[in-house]
């Protein structure tokens, strides 16, 4: 197994996976929060627009979205962010991953809002808090706590889904795995174990931390 690490840049490939994960998680969090605000806003049009976005994106395969980023934006429209071919694909894969997972972030945040009982808002209003105050002091703190577990699940899914970026030639782990398999078919099982255990190491802490946080910050009802 040591051969694999000396012959191939396994850690470097995992590094790209981590870069993809962190950047697209930030993007997904920003876009997802915006869509979630639209979904819970009192304006009917924004509400429907947000629902349309979530329904379209959630029902499209991620592979298709990533391929479209390449075929549609890079090849067809020539929207290059960088002259470097590899970096260009990396950036567009990040954009695709961010827009795809934003739909799930939106649903996670919305489910957090749904965990807040209506009585909380009524109580806030009845003691004379304004809309902004009741949002800030009463509703949102509870909503974010309720959304920790689904947000953590989305982050875990995102980490695993970065492998799809290999479809447009981003040099992350799944791509390296294919290369290693072709060069060293005798090490098929060790290759799988190295990659699989790498992902267990990446995703396990996320699950543990979010479970711990959601229990520690749980709202007693």
């Amino acid at each position, binding site marked *: 197994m040591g051969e694999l690490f000396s012959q191939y840049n396994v850690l470097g490939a995992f590094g790209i996976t981590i870069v993809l994960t962190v950047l697209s998680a930030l993007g997904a969090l920003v876009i997802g929060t915006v869509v979630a605000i639209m979904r*819970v806003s*009192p*304006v*009917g*049009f*924004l*509400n429907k*627009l947000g629902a349309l976005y979530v*329904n*379209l994106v*959630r*029902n*499209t*395969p*991620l*592979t*298709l979205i990533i*391929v*479209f980023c390449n*075929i*549609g934006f890079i*090849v*067809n*429209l020539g929207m290059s962010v960088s002259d470097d071919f590899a970096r260009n694909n990396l950036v567009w894969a990040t954009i695709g991953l961010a827009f795809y997972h934003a739909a799930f972030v939106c649903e996670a945040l919305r489910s957090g*809002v749904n965990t*807040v*009982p*209506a009585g*909380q*808002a009524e109580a806030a*209003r009845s003691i004379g808090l304004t*809309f902004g105050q009741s*949002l800030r002091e009463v*509703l949102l703190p509870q909503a974010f706590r309720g959304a920790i577990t689904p947000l953590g699940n989305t982050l*875990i899914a995102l980490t*695993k*889904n970065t*492998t*799809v970026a*290999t*479809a447009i030639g981003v040099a992350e*782990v*799944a791509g390296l*795995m*294919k290369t290693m*398999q072709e060069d060293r*078919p005798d090490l*098929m*099982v060790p*290759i*799988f174990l190295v*990659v*699989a255990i790498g*992902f*267990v190491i990446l*995703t*396990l802490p996320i*699950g543990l931390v979010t479970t711990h946080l959601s229990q520690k910050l749980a709202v007693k009802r």
Partner: protein
Amino acid sequence: MSSVLFDIPGPKARARHRLIMIVSAVLTLLALAWAISRFAAKGNLEAAKWTPFLTGDIWVNYLIPGLINTLKAAAISVVLAGAFGLLFGIGRLSDNAAIRWISTVIVEFFRSVPVLVMMVAAFGLFSFNRVFEASINPLAAVITGLTLYNGSVVAELLRSGVGGLPSGQSEAGLAIGLTRSQTLRSILLPQAITAMLPALVSQLVVILKDTALGAIITYPELLTTFSQIGSYKSNPVPALIVIALIFIAINYLLTSAAAKIEARLRDKGRATIAKGTIGPPNRVDLEPVEEALIAADESVLHERYRTPDK
């Protein structure tokens, strides 16, 4: 539309909402128009790029065979994942610590490894060891990856479904003399599977979407047809859009079905996993009964001790 987040809007708020609506609608239209004009500038709106989809040729030779391959891989995976999930879900509920432990490790491991990694690994193993005919290897690899991942998810759903049932259900089963496995089989599992139904149907969407990963290991499913159509009619972007619409239509139907099943179960008063457990039974007021018993007791005592020497 009511929400915990805001009051029912008054006239001033309604006017403000109208203004926000108009501004955001204009912005959305501008963004759409900009995107469409960019794609139109590259000739993607030309009729020649879209008319092929109105002819039978493209559908019969590309899209429908691709769709059939997608559905085939999904259907086989659904059956196998169900079996896998049932096996390891029950394993995780077992009394035997060793079985429980092994099932937990297997389920947690396959849940945290990306589906694509499992597909690539299976594809490599199958083709290197010549397990199947060369033409079947991609299909087998897609099914292996989907089964291991989604089977683990089903196992986890099953465990939480059984765990979410009121403890009175298994206590009642044991109390009437059923063994533990009989209780599980005839009382807990039927209820857990009903409760899981909406989540299971949503998992079908995940399976169907993930078949598109097969494109990366050369399985000829629906997404792969885009490159064939694209090079045949030189319209890769319209081809991708049509394929996306097919996926969205099928998955949207499945998602709505899941929502309908959940609503029906809730109407019937059945619990679903997402909604938590069945509520506690109504409390019976025992006080009048107790009083009556005490009163009866007293009158008996009075009778007995008042008339000993009569």
